[in-house]
């Protein structure tokens, strides 16, 4: 080994584009912060005023975590999240396949599918829930449907993007062996995306679990209904108990999910 220092080629300068993007990000953040009237001193001042919501936090009713009604609401939330995720995930696989070139040789249906998916995806889950509450009525079914469509859109998009980057070699091999189109998809394509797909499905479940807390605020069932109930009555101590419980559930689910996902990909 010699001690001679190696001369590296001159470092490329950061591109004008990159600099421009950074400047824009900073300017945009500052402007919006001023628009919204954000100030740190304001926050601290607000925190010092008497505040029943915060008082509730200091006197949490832990008992609320285990009350009969809260438990029922939790079970409903979990049911919504599980069913919504499962349904969305199952339907998303064929939709993702049909909206990509490997899975669907015909351009027109492909473009149509992608456009429909873009529309579905542009509607946030809370709005879905609101729409279904109007259409189907107040209750868990609306929440379930909202989560289904939300999952469908997210999963289809992520899976379709993964499909665009797969190895074409096995597809050629399946075609050369005389496989039919669906046989080719099953044997040459699906095994390639399955780990990523499962990982997305778990991530989608995490998203849905968290979303299902909010859905109740517009009447779509689950734990959110109960949160809304306490909020309207100003029972902040009970509300915080419930929030804490929910936090715990989400934390555990994510902890498990992250561990599984790490092994998948």
């Amino acid at each position: 080994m010699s001690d001679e220092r190696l001369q590296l080629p001159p470092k490329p300068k950061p591109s004008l584009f990159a600099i421009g993007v950074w400047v824009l990000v900073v300017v945009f953040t500052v402007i919006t912060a001023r628009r919204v009237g954000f100030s740190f001193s304001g926050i601290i001042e607000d925190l010092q005023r008497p505040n029943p919501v915060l008082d509730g936090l200091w006197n949490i009713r832990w008992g609320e975590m285990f009350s009969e009604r809260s438990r029922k609401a939790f079970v409903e939330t979990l049911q919504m999240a599980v069913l919504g995720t499962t349904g969305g995930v199952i339907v998303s696989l064929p939709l993702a396949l049909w909206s990509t070139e490997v899975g669907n040789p015909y351009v027109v249906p492909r473009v149509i599918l992608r456009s429909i998916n873009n529309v579905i995806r542009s509607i946030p889950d809370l709005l879905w829930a609101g729409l279904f509450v109007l259409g189907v009525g107040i209750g868990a079914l609306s929440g379930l449907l909202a989560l289904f469509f939300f999952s469908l859109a997210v999963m289809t998009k992520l899976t379709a993007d993964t499909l665009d980057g797969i190895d074409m070699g096995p597809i050629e091999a399946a075609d050369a062996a005389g496989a039919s189109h669906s046989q080719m998809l099953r044997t040459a394509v699906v095994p390639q995306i399955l780990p990523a797909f499962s990982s997305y499905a778990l991530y989608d479940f995490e998203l849905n679990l968290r979303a299902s807390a909010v859905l109740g605020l517009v009447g779509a069932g689950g734990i959110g209904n109960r949160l809304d109930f306490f909020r309207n009555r100003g029972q902040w101590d009970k509300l915080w108990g419930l929030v804490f419980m929910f936090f715990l559930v989400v934390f555990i689910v994510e902890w498990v999910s992250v561990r599984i996902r790490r092994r998948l990909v």
Partner: protein
Amino acid sequence: MIRFEQANVIYDGGVTAMKDLDLEIGDGEFVVIVGLSGAGKSTLIRAINGLVPLTSGQLDVNGHDVPNLSRKERRALRSEVGMIFQGFNLVDRTSVINNVLMGRLHQVPTWRTLIGRYPDRDIQIAARALQRVEILDRAYVRASNLSGGQRQRVGIARALAQEPKIILADEPVASLDPPTSHVVMKYLQQISRDLGITTIVNLHFLDLATAYADRIIGLRSGELVFDGPGSACDAQVFEDIYGRSLTADDTMEKQAAL
């Protein structure tokens, strides 16, 4: 039997990759195709199972009129023709046996493929194919956990599982080292002899070509410029095919010695 008559392939960009080809390959022959890069070797091989369509001319493969096949007939043709690839084209994320079972797809009902439950008979055929290339003990290993030589043997087993009449191999050893290349070529030769499978192999190392071929076909710019037994192929013939003098890059042994 494979018979080209006045066959032409002109690609979209205007490149003529096959020019007025007249060629007949009999059942059970072991043919090696040589030629410079871009001479049209892959094009010839892929025309046989319809992966590349002819622009004009006739091509008959075991009684299939290749240029005029319906989609269903083309699948039937492909089921009779096994293919082996330079890059192996295995599904890395799944087991060796699942890769080999891909060779059975044309016999297996679609619903069984979809749920991944293959009939016992087809699993037996796949297992026998793996045994022939002596890798049956790795049947449940993931394909990504094999060495290059082992992966190509799985590639051969997949083609064999089709119980094909013809095997096409497009530079099957180009990504392998010399000893492994010989192992793979020996399996191909032996399979062709034992089972009477017509085998067509693209190679770019001349010493490998002469060592294994019963018959060598030389291509230059899409045209057939040599057709004769491997024994008739000396350095002079190769220089004619290549249109230049030979270098160390053209033989595996010399190149390996570099």
